[in-house]
């Protein structure tokens, strides 16, 4: 019994460490800037209002829309919603009223991206954007590197200290990644079995994308499809590697050494899909910013303000009172325990 309870306690400690170990706000803030900024750049020129003029014969609301009794919108309404979304994305990127605009970006973005699926379903690249917007909307991602933070510092409020609040959103995005990849691997095994890797399946998908009238979307970034398809062994090796990466992706959550292999491998795999099959898959790549330890990256670059920032951060009062437990180590500006 002691062994079991000890194991449970260790599991509980591991759970809390995974989600809630204190982290400085900088990492999450950089992710916020890059994520919202890139989504804004991708969609800023896209006009959703034309969907209001499409014949109602195509309207098949997704379960989310059905449950909310949402009907086909007018072009005028879509003009308003897309303006709200684009403004909210820009404001969230800059960190202006981040909580408010983060929520607005999530609600309006979910509506607009969900709308696409009511007219015909394909692809999953947009889904992760919606989930990440939802996670960020509920996070405190505007506590650093933001206009909000600048205003607070002008009022004399201290910089936020490392906190659990800056850890769980990033970890939850990681978990979403793991489900996306693992789900893709399970679907392949369920619908095709190992034949997915041992047959010409991948070759056919690649060739299909290389034939102008047969490709599922716009032209891929390269025209290497035929060359790759001619080498059956290469296609099967890539397909087998894909299955291994997808099914093994959850390990990246818990095993740091494997994370360094699996996450870049997944990124390269999706880059390959973008280059050879689906050019619009790059929307998914945006969310990889959550895997980068930005503070460590910045720490390797020389910059003048680091000492001043560290001094300011260490003198701050934690946003969450519970962080300031006497048993906790204090943290320097880079989120590492101070000796």
């Amino acid at each position, binding site marked *: 019994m002691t062994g079991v309870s000890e194991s449970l306690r260790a599991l509980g400690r591991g759970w809390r460490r995974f989600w809630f170990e204190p982290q400085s706000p900088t990492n999450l803030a950089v992710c916020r800037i890059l994520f919202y900024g890139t989504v804004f750049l991708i969609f800023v020129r896209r006009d959703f209002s034309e969907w209001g003029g499409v014949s109602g014969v195509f309207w098949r609301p997704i379960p989310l829309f059905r449950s909310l009794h949402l009907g086909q919108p007018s072009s005028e309404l879509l003009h308003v919603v897309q303006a709200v979304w684009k403004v909210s994305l820009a404001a969230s990127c800059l960190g202006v009223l981040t909580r408010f605009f983060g929520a607005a970006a999530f609600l309006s973005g979910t509506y607009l991206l969900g709308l696409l699926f009511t007219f015909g379903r394909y692809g999953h690249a947009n889904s992760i954007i919606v989930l990440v917007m939802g996670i960020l909307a509920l996070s405190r991602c505007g506590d650093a590197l933001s206009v909000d933070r600048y205003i607070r510092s002008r009022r004399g409020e201290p910089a936020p200290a490392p906190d659990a609040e800056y850890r769980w959103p990033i970890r*939850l995005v990681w978990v*979403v990644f793991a489900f996306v990849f693992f789900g893709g691997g399970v679907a392949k095994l369920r*619908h095709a079995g190992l034949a*997915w890797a041992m047959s010409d399946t991948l070759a*056919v998908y690649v060739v299909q994308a290389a034939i102008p009238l047969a490709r599922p979307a716009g032209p891929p970034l390269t025209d290497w499809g035929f060359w790759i398809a001619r080498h059956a062994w290469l296609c099967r090796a890539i397909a087998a590697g894909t299955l291994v990466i997808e099914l093994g992706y959850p390990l990246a959550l818990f095993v740091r050494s494997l994370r360094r292999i699996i996450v870049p491998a997944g990124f390269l795999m999706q880059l390959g899909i973008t280059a050879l099959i689906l050019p619009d898959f790059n929307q998914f790549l945006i969310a990889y910013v959550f895997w980068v330890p930005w503070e460590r990256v910045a720490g390797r670059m020389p910059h003048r303000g680091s000492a001043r920032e560290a001094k300011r951060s260490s003198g701050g009062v934690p946003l969450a009172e519970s962080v300031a437990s006497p048993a906790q180590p204090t943290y320097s500006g880079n989120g590492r325990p101070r000796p």
Partner: protein
Amino acid sequence: MSRLSGPWRRAVVYVVIATIVAASVLAIVRDPPLANEPWPFSAYRLYAQANTGRYVSRHRLFGVTREDPPREIPLVDEYLQPFEHLRFTYALLRLRREKRREGALEEGLRDVLSRYEARRRAGKHDGPALRGVRLYHLRWRLVERVPQNRDVPDERRLLFEISE
């Protein structure tokens, strides 16, 4: 170890985590068809089917020009806006499959033609004037995993046609 501030905040965070995890697991376990997926959650079954490697096929929409003699031009994304070609093909095939509404496919293709012409007149694309739209099923036979001619399909079957 840090804790989140206050019971309400803790509850919110735990509910968010539990919702995303539970919905993701359910979507993968249930693996519903694309039309019934609990979007934005999914079983990610795209590209999950095995393929024999003998054929590549695709439904494709062509416009019939007003010229004499008329030409057929493939209706690429630019001409189908706001649809993309693949989203539109799925929508059309769904109309064909459902058969619950008489004339739905024809109504859909007429909508394509009228939007194409309206956007052309508004200068939103530079395609030629059209008098009709045709839906084809195209098929390429693969030899050693590649087609003989990537630009010309080996089979071409007309499925539906509308004209002004």
